[in-house]
């Protein structure tokens, strides 16, 4: 209905393969970006930025990362939390060793450490598939968690065992630490997430992304098309872990401000996997939808009784929250196992063919 595609034709392959070939979509994307970059900082209060938008974006980025591995390359992983941890600890070490280098550079650099570790733990994927691979990634998860605790060098022998974000500034603006304003941190996170999402999208629609999907859909045929499973799988692990690592570093540096191992535990791996599955495997926008759903919905539920003036015990709300989230996950998987992204594209398709049903 909203889509009026008549008259939109492509005269080049570039236009035909553009990220958003439909004009209305382009419009929507620019509108969203405008709201995100201008609208949100203008109207958002600290709570909205600190507790909703920043974590949402960070988790969305991690979901993009996991989606690359699980959704696009078909390798199931439960090590996301730990890979995020690698990024966070790497960034902490980097910035304490080189305090003068811009923190954004360090955050991106920390992704490389995570990518390296990811590749090492990705090696078994050459022989192991499906649920069996889950075990490898869980091994990574628990082993790395253990390292974060046991290797005191990682947290600079801090008695608390936690990494605490030092204050870093660039161009006179405080970027990290408690004195950094939420708006600054939000805009930084948003910029990094937008750029990295764009890059992820590019990789996915190119040769490398295709090789991942080939391995995912039919690994044997892929190999017979000349795709080396080693390269495809390891590159997926590397890129995925890179994204998770950057997300982890941002999580600590731009959101939490301090973190212990608990912030990278297996529950986070599950959390991100939820976001990916519920959002839709193999869909970048699904990663964002999933992150929004899993992160924002509970906050709304927690806030809801207050808004409508019902006195409910905080604990009861939390219990109901668990039940509701669990129930909704089941519900959504039943109505659309391919996730919110599929629901979205069904809806979009409906709008495109409106008023027809197909």
């Amino acid at each position, binding site marked *: 209905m909203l889509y009026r595609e008549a008259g939109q*034709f492509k005269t080049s392959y570039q236009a035909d393969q553009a990220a958003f070939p439909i004009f209305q979509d382009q419009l929507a994307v620019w509108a969203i970006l405008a709201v995100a970059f201008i609208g949100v900082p203008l109207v958002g209060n600290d709570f909205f930025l600190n507790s909703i938008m920043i974590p949402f974006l960070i988790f969305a980025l991690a979901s993009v990362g996991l989606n690359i591995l699980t959704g696009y390359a078909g390798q199931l992983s439960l090590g996301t939390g730990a890979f995020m941890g690698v990024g966070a600890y790497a960034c902490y070490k980097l910035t304490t060793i080189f305090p003068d280098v811009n923190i954004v550079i360090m955050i991106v650099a920390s992704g490389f450490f995570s990518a390296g570790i990811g590749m090492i733990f990705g090696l078994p994927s050459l022989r192991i598939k499906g649920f069996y691979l889950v075990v490898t990634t869980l091994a990574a998860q628990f082993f790395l968690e253990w390292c974060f605790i046991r290797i005191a060098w990682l947290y600079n022998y801090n008695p608390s065992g936690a990494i605490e974000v030092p204050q870093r500034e660039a161009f006179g603006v405080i970027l990290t630490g408690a004195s950094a304003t939420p708006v600054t941190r939000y805009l930084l996170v948003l910029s990094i997430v937008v750029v990295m999402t764009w890059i992820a999208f590019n990789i996915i629609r190119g040769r490398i992304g295709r090789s991942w999907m080939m391995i995912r859909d039919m690994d044997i045929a892929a190999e017979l098309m000349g795709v080396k499973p080693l390269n495809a799988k390891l590159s997926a692990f590397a890129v995925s872990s890179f994204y998770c690592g950057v997300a982890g570093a941002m999580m600590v540096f731009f959101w939490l401000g301090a973190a212990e191992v608990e912030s990278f535990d297996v529950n986070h791996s599950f959390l991100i996997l939820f976001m990916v599955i519920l959002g839709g495997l193999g869909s970048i926008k699904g990663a964002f939808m999933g992150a929004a759903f899993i992160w924002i919905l509970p906050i709304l539920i927690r806030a809801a009784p207050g808004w409508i003036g019902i006195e409910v015990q905080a604990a009861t709300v939390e219990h109901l929250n668990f039940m509701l989230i669990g129930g909704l996950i089941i519900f959504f998987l039943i109505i659309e196992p391919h996730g919110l992204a599929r629901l979205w594209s069904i809806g979009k398709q409906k709008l495109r063919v409106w008023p027809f*049903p197909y």
Partner: protein
Amino acid sequence: MAVAEDRSATGLSTFPQYLLLNAERFGSRVAMRHKDFGIWQSWSWAEQLDQVRRFSLGLKQMGLKPGQKVALIGANRPRLYWTFCAVQAIGGVPVPLYSDSVAEEMAYVLEHAEAVFAVCQDQEQVDKVLSMGEALTHLDQIIYDEPRGLRDYDQDHLHSFEQVQAMGRKALEDPKVGEDWVAGIGKGKGGDLAVMLYTSGTTGRPKGVMLSYENLVVSARNANAFDSFDQNEQVIAYLPIAWVGDHVFSYAQAYVAGYCVCCPESAETTDQDRREIAPTYFFAPPRVFETLLTAILVRMEDAGRIKRAMFNYFMDHARRVGERILNGERVGVLDRLLNWFGEILVYGPLKNRMGLTRMQVGYTAGEAIGPEIFRFYRSLGLNLKQLYGQTEASVYVTAQPDGEIRPDTVGRPSPDVEIEIDKSGEVLYRSPGVFVGYYKNDEATKSTKDKNGWVRTGDAGFFDHEGHLKIIDRAKDVGKMKDGSLFAPKYIENKLKFFPNIKEVVAFGDERDFCAVFLNIDLTSVGNWAERNNISYASYQELASHPEVYAMMEEHVDQVNRDLSGEDMMAGSQIHRFLVLHKELDADDGELTRTQKVRRSFIAERYGELIDALYDGSEHKFVETEVTFEDGRKGSISADVIIRDAKVYPVAEEASRQEAAE
């Protein structure tokens, strides 16, 4: 480009001259698009000139002489359109052929037209031409567009389009060749033969209609002015290139106005391609609009209940006010508001799905369009109009001007066209577009076009009180009733056939007291209706004789009678009696032609008893009819066919007629 500078746009007389002009004035504007290899390949006028020039000079290199004929065989492809101009530029005459015709038909035309070159789209067409071998005494060279499958052909006289263009490019290395070519174009005159279009005609061999540049250029110029077409139009070329309509819309008018012509990827993707291009000007025969509408309704049937209700609500609304808004009449604020909602929810999306969002003008012609269908499109806010035309007239005879649209007329005479109706009711016209003559067929030319330039259309018609022409039937089928009033069977049959429940109609009345009809119900449509109303039936026969079906038919007939009573010429042929045939008319039984046209005389003979019964006042008649089954076996069915009287209306006065038109 001296030539172009010398003359104003209106002073040009040939298409190659327009090409030069367009390359100059619209150099970088897109002249042609073709969906190929997944995207819309585009050529600007300057590039188009380049393509045409190279091919043209290549043809010249190959020995094409002025006046020689070049056959064009294939679907709508840029290269075939360029061939028209390339041939014309060196004084040749292009002869487009229907690509779906069989080899023998093709051979006749090629031979008759004395074509020396054939430009074919692909292997299929090349094969057809080659298969005729020695039968083609004039044909010398074959040029193909798509090389697929032709790699192994080793015939010397087979060339690819590229090869020919390469020859042209080589020749162009000598600057003089190019100058000469342009000079040659400059010498073209309006009276020169531009193109030969073969019309199939209902009887006999196809006739080659010779059209001069003047015919086409003036017609195109008038038509462009009539609907204010300029270089901003986009049209989609999907009708056969051998058909005059396509030649005028996609070639003549495009060159004169300088607008862009788009060729779809393939026949299956035409709908999709149209949606992508969203033409600003769209021509389609009624059946295309009919198919589109059917597709819409069928798909809406599958929609959810709410959506369907919404669709029906807004379509009802459109029916009430849509057309009035389109015609610029006064409409209440609330209705306008509703229409605005409708535009968002239904009309806009529908137009979008049909690819007609940007359509400024749409035409339908060729046969009568069902008024319901016509109104449907108009009510969506689409400026769909009717025209009446012929190959011999370079298309335009009459057309509906904006704001004077009637579903049952074909409009006023087009600019520069004079129309007369002779005493037998046949329509005659005279215009600048009138053809030069039939190729190598003076006799036919004489019988069609008199010495004053009046051309017989072969169609019977009349002007209504507003001066709009109404075509009622082929002139030769029009008869007289005993009281002397005009009887046009097809006119009545068409009116009835526009009801979806009626599949076939045979009307009688020539030399009789009144008009009476045989009806065939549409089994799908009536069957659906029966299902919805819990009417069970075992066979066509049982359904056809069902009282409720009869009641329904009676309603339809009554509606037609009421319509007819409003038209003074036709009021006399109101239907007095009708019956629903006990079997479907079938080509296997010889009742229909293979193209599904009613064989009137055969039916009159076969069902003589029933016709008698229609006129002798009996209430029913028992008949037994022999039928042929699908497997070829013969059998017979018998039935007691009921005959009904229909209500007849007195001829209405002027005032009431006005109302009916609303």
